[in-house]
């Protein structure tokens, strides 16, 4: 802790609802945030061109001597002369702005044109959400991220390749992700326009699944927060809709009967993907039957493996369900060892049922506005396979958006087979810890350039 400015608020979730370890920074305001927002310095300064350089082309009739004399008269120096188009790249004096120099050059009858040396950057989809730079799960530039009081470090590109995947699709607003959880915050500025309908509350048996815990809003934000809206965070599935179904109470507990009600309601109300960031060790035939019904209706069911370092929990362990393990910002499976310094150390469950993994350690997401008191902002860091699961649910929704003809099993296979086997050094191929690997949105969505058959295979 670096003083009173940084206070952690840990969201404690009891046994049944996987612990989503959440740390909330009391000084989580824009001023402090910009301190770690290095990547935003370019856009915040508003410069679109190099501040002390211009490009100039003289008319062909102007002699070399006249050109040199003109450049000298503007107290500029030639950085280079671009061959082919015969344009001068000039360094202008420090006390003259680009605009002033361009004005002067345009008055010169020997100049054909003069222009700023504009910046260019790669054409890659980067949402303008304020805190996107801290979402290492989506784009990990390496280095330090997270709340200033507890800096986390990451490995470059240990992420789900979201920016590359968004080059192909942002998803369809007709694709619905049902979040079966503690409800959702209907007033959250980063979620309010993403809700498909009011959903349903099976805890209180009414049509108001307002989140009174926080977990459901966190999960929904990861899957499909409002993205590219200039504030908050980015969701995996930009355009897909959220259907909040409350099946977990405000203490973080639920039961199979309530869960089945929620699954059936989700199927009837057009869900394409069901996110279950919950589970437990007991196998239930009725729970499996409900999930099988969803699967047979083409609904992709994604569930968290669990956080206790034991065998995969149910419903994740059912074959009709995708079981999601957790990795961290260095693409390592989360274990008690690498979370030893966390307020609540935890470990991703394992077993032959694990399908894939996704980032689940120190993930930034939304937090209900009703549970946030100033000067907090309604955002939080959280950890657990609960947070890994909506990354996969979001990807499933994006695949469904562009390939509506695929079955649930097909979509699950696409996610499995296009993953990154990030622990291949120790466990080549599918293994019981991260399954086929950490999901890769680029490979799952963007066309892969095929290559000649390897005759040695």
């Amino acid at each position, binding site marked *: 802790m670096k003083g009173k400015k940084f206070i952690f608020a840990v969201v404690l979730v009891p046994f049944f609802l996987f612990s989503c370890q959440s740390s909330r920074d009391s000084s989580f305001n824009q001023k402090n945030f910009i301190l770690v927002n290095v990547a935003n310095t370019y856009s915040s300064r508003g410069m679109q061109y190099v501040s002390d350089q211009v490009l100039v082309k003289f008319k062909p009739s102007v002699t070399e001597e006249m050109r040199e004399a003109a450049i000298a008269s503007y107290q500029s120096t030639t950085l280079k002369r671009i061959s082919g188009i015969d344009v001068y790249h000039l360094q202008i004096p420090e006390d003259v702005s680009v605009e002033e120099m361009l004005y002067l050059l345009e008055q010169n009858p020997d100049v054909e044109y003069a222009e700023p040396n504009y910046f260019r950057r790669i054409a890659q989809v980067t949402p303008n959400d304020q805190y996107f730079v801290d979402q290492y799960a989506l784009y990990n530039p390496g280095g330090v991220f997270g709340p200033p009081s507890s800096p986390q470090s990451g490995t470059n590109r240990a992420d789900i390749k979201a920016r590359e995947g968004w080059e192909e699709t942002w998803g369809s607003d007709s694709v619905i992700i049902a979040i079966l959880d503690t409800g959702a915050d209907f007033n959250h500025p980063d979620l309010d326009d993403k809700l498909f309908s009011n959903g349903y509350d099976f805890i209180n048996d009414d049509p108001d699944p307002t989140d009174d815990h926080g977990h459901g809003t966190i999960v929904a934000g990861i899957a499909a927060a409002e993205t590219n809206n200039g504030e908050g965070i980015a969701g995996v599935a930009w355009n897909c809709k959220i259907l909040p179904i409350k099946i977990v109470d405000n203490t973080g507990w639920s039961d199979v009967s309530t869960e089945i009600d929620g699954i059936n309601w989700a199927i009837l109300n057009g869900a394409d993907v069901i996110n279950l960031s919950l589970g437990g060790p007991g196998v239930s035939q009725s729970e499996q039957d409900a999930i099988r019904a969803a699967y047979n209706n083409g609904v992709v069911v994604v569930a968290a493996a669990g956080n206790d370092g034991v065998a995969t929990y149910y419903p994740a362990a059912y074959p009709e369900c995708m079981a999601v393990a957790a990795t961290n910002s260095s693409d390592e499976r989360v274990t008690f060892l690498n979370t030893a310094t966390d307020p609540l150390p935890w470990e991703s469950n394992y077993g032959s049922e694990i399908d894939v993994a996704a980032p689940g350690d120190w993930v930034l997401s939304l937090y209900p506005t009703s549970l946030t008191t100033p000067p907090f902002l309604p955002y939080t860091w959280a950890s657990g396979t609960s947070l890994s699961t909506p990354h996969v649910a979001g990807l499933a929704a994006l695949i469904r958006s562009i390939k509506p003809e695929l079955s649930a099993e*097909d979509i699950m296979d696409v996610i499995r*087979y296009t*993953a990154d*086997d990030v622990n291949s050094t120790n466990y080549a191929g599918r293994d019981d810890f991260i399954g086929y690997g950490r999901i890769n949105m680029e490979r799952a969505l963007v066309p892969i*350039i*095929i290559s000649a058959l*390897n005759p040695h295979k």
Partner: protein
Amino acid sequence: MKKVEIFLLSALLVLTLTCFSSAQEPEPQEQEQKLFNAVSISPGLGFEYFSRTIGWDDDEYTSKLKSLFLTLDAEVELQRGIYVRAVLGFSSSSYEALVFRELPVSVQLPEDYIKGFILGAEVRKKLIHSESLRVDAFGQFYYCYGIKKEWEVPDLTVEGTVEGRPTWMRAPVGLIFTYTGYETFFPYINLNFNKLWGKFNMDEIIQDLTGREEKKISGESSFCISLGFTFKLTESISFKSEASFMPYKEGTDFGILVKAIYSLD
């Protein structure tokens, strides 16, 4: 089938019928004799290359179809001024950057040549033949049947392959204006409507994940202007060379043809 394809095939059929119907009708006995005793037979060996912009997915995207083929053909002059040509050949075609997004895992073709066979036919009729100008009407149809080719889908967690088979068809209909003022050198200009269309079937197998996509392709250009010449080396041997230009909205496609012809008059 698109309207324009129906139009072209109809035009080809009409042209064929016109050739035969407008020719001076020989007596039945003479006709029978002509069919079995053609005026001339000219076998030829040709090499052709073209690069054409093709549209796919309702023309939302474009790629380049590059094809080179070696053909053996035989042209028969059935009656004075009416020629029929049959073509058989071997082709190699590339469909660079064709993307299959309907497969479970989307894939993109690299620049890779796929072998195939060419079957073709042409009907040509002499319309005008003055001292220095000859005008022919012609219709042609080429069918390229690609041989199945298999590729690997790289970087997956399991082994995955795709298998593709392309076919394309080309049907030009037009007029050839030949300058016949020289003795052995005959430059010509060929103006034609030139349609190209086809499909590319791609099957994907990644363990138990399978899918098939049939992608329809069509040439962006519909009009072709060819400049060429025929050079008569001897009475029975001649060479033909041609360069073709096919303008479309955003550029011009091109093709070349080189051919040796032996005349068995």
